[in-house]
């Protein structure tokens, strides 16, 4: 596997972890008890994300890695829709498609 491909996969992984971390923080806001468990899980996930993003920066230009990190908007929306049943309007879907398209342009 080339270093670039590994870097791109690490960015996708970082973005996915970010989505889960944000869902945890949102869960903590709605939880009536044991809020701190969700916050702790969220913070742990953020640490995992930092490790994965550091690995990506070792393999990619920061001008590639940073804008691609906007893929986290995509994962946050998908996880919020699937796990929290949050509604997603058409403007948001179009924004996400633009972000995915932009990330593909940068990665190739």
């Amino acid at each position, binding site marked *: 596997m080339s270093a670039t491909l590994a870097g791109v996969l690490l960015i996708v992984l970082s973005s996915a972890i970010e989505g889960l971390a944000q869902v945890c923080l949102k869960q903590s806001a709605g939880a009536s008890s044991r809020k701190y468990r969700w916050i702790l899980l969220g913070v742990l996930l953020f640490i995992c994300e930092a490790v994965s993003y550091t690995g990506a920066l070792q393999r990619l230009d920061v001008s590639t890695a940073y804008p691609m990190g906007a893929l986290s908007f995509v994962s946050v929306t998908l996880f919020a829709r699937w796990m929290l049943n949050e509604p997603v*309007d058409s403007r948001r879907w179009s*924004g996400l*498609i*633009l*972000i995915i398209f*932009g990330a593909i342009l940068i990665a190739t």
Partner: protein
Amino acid sequence: MESRSKSKHRLAVGLALAITLDTAGQLLWKFTADTLPSSAALWPTVHAVLGQPLVLVLIALFGCQLINWLKVLEYADLSYAQPITSLSYVTVCAFSAFMFGERIELAKAAGILCIFCGVWLISQSKPRIDAQRST
């Protein structure tokens, strides 16, 4: 009137600071990542991270960023503030070319523009505010 223009001024400073901290954080993170051993093994990397003092500077920068961001959100809606701070995609790109000699090809520039527009569109979607839960 005076206090209103004062908050406007503070908001502008806060947004500029947010973009600056975002940019500085990314550049420093890249610089730090390049000082780490390139081995794919996790533990030697973690060991190197703990021994790298720049990591502390980086964590301090993120702390400042968080405090400043929360301050900005006191003065402005997220949907207004977020697309403005996504200007940091442009500044990170410009400074990475200047400091690390990274090349900005046409495809990369077009991709960044797409992402910027996408973030702007997302910020235009209407928030659902749950009034029942906030009581």
